């Protein structure tokens, strides 16, 4: 069955409605134990209470602040390291295997070492965010640069671009599609790492609310914060990085205009 493109969104909305409805019906039919697995209504109510008691907003703000600062540092340092890797074979050979190795490490695995290094301070959360996302950004940047069509570099050289200006005027712009893909992946990994670190190291933030929910045996809060975490992650992925990526791919001639 061929569904017209513009109708797909109704199917998506229908799917989620069905998912939530099934969940609610299972609850009403007592197929799940309510103290272990709450209903969508209970979850929504709990989130509403958290928001009304002014717990939710400061935590969301704190998480986004940490993510913003940590990810900005990771992205800038990752870009510079990626640029060095992309332009120097020696640097690339040394760092590539190291970063690929680090990338296989689950984000949460950085939490114990950050506790050892930084104790319970916020610095440790930044550390986890940076270490989770930096390798992805660096590798994507270096891949992007080493795959720049040679013609761009030749054109730039003959048009009198001095060597020091090549990275900013040609290499980074030419590698932008790959860099944005790396930033998108890096953001997801940073989000994993940040929330994992907040579980253990913080007294505010989405991760902290998740942890508190478990401490208080409040399943509604646990599920509610999980849903929020997923929603925020998804929104940024789709509507910030996804849209930028799509625009760049069209502009660079890698994708057709929708």
């Amino acid at each position, binding site marked *: 069955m061929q569904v017209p493109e513009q109708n797909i969104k109704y199917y998506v909305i229908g799917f989620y409605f069905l998912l939530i409805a099934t969940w609610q019906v299972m609850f009403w039919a007592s197929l799940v134990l309510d103290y272990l697995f709450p209903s969508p209504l209970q979850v929504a109510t709990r989130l509403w209470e958290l928001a009304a008691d002014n717990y939710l907003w400061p935590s969301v703000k704190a998480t986004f602040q940490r993510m913003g600062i940590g990810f900005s540092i990771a992205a800038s340092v990752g870009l510079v390291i990626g640029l060095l890797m992309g332009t120097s074979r020696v640097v690339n050979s040394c760092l590539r295997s190291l970063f690929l190795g680090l990338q296989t490490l689950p984000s949460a695995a950085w939490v114990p070492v950050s506790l050892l290094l930084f104790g319970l301070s916020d610095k440790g959360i930044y550390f986890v965010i940076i270490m989770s996302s930096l390798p992805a950004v660096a590798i994507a940047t270096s891949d992007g640069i080493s795959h720049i*069509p040679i*013609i*761009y570099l*030749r*054109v*730039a*050289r*003959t*048009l*009198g*671009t001095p060597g020091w200006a090549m990275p900013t005027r*040609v290499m980074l*712009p*030419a590698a*932008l599609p790959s860099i944005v893909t790396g930033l998108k992946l890096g953001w997801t990994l940073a989000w994993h790492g940040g929330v994992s670190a907040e579980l253990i190291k913080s007294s505010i933030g989405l991760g902290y609310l998740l942890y508190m929910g478990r401490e208080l045996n409040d399943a509604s809060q646990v599920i509610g914060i999980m849903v929020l975490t997923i929603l925020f992650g998804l929104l940024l992925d789709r509507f910030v990085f996804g849209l930028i990526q799509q625009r760049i791919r*069209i*502009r*660079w*001639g890698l994708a057709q205009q929708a």
Partner: protein
Amino acid sequence: MPTTGSRPVKLKLTDITKTYANGSHTIEALQPVSVEVLDGEFVVFFGPSGCGKSTLLNIIAGFETPTEGTVTLDNQTVKGPHHDRLMLFQEHGLFPWLNVIENVMYGLKRKFRFKPHARRGTARQFLQMVHLEQFEHTPIHALSGGMKQRVALARALAPDPKVLLVDEPFPALDALTRAKLYGDLQEIFMRTRKTIVLVTHDPREAACLGDRVLVFSGRPGKIKADIRIDLPRLREINDPAVGAYAATILSHLESPADAGA
């Protein structure tokens, strides 16, 4: 037609050879080639693929170094790429992160370092020359193939190079667009009196565009003939006189006798 006697030599290639190492043995891509291109002359390197004509163009541009021999421009030995020899590439090579006029302005950064206004003005003139002045702010992906090639031409001309190098620029275009571009290129040549070296494997294109056509044979590449095209400009690609010259050019390629060696 201006005669050769009065004009100075612009570009001089002396005994250029190129060999590539391939494991234990070497591949000879170019046998000693010597060419003199006069100031304001339109010279075409014609030959089958693999005859070394593109290698020679890359050597002039400075992208490749000759194994032996020298290239001089205005009696100065050429070393590496430089904006006095700009190349119009087969795959235009326009920067997708810049729009049309920004691409043309790119090569003017050096000349008008702190004068963006002057850059824009000059870039506009060259966009007018290729009839694209109303597409200043268009992103590159929105242009057709022929328009892209014309922007690339404007970009290569804007920094006022001493020699324009053209590497098979039109193969991917349809016949109508090509015919238009042949006209544009000749108009620009007549207006700017720029020295141009163009590489092609199309005998008709060679006869239509060149003041002189050097016929290369492969491999290793060497020059078999040096043919003067005595036709007034603008020449039409479908003009029978152009066709006759194209036949002459082809006959030199097919004849077994080595005219040059």
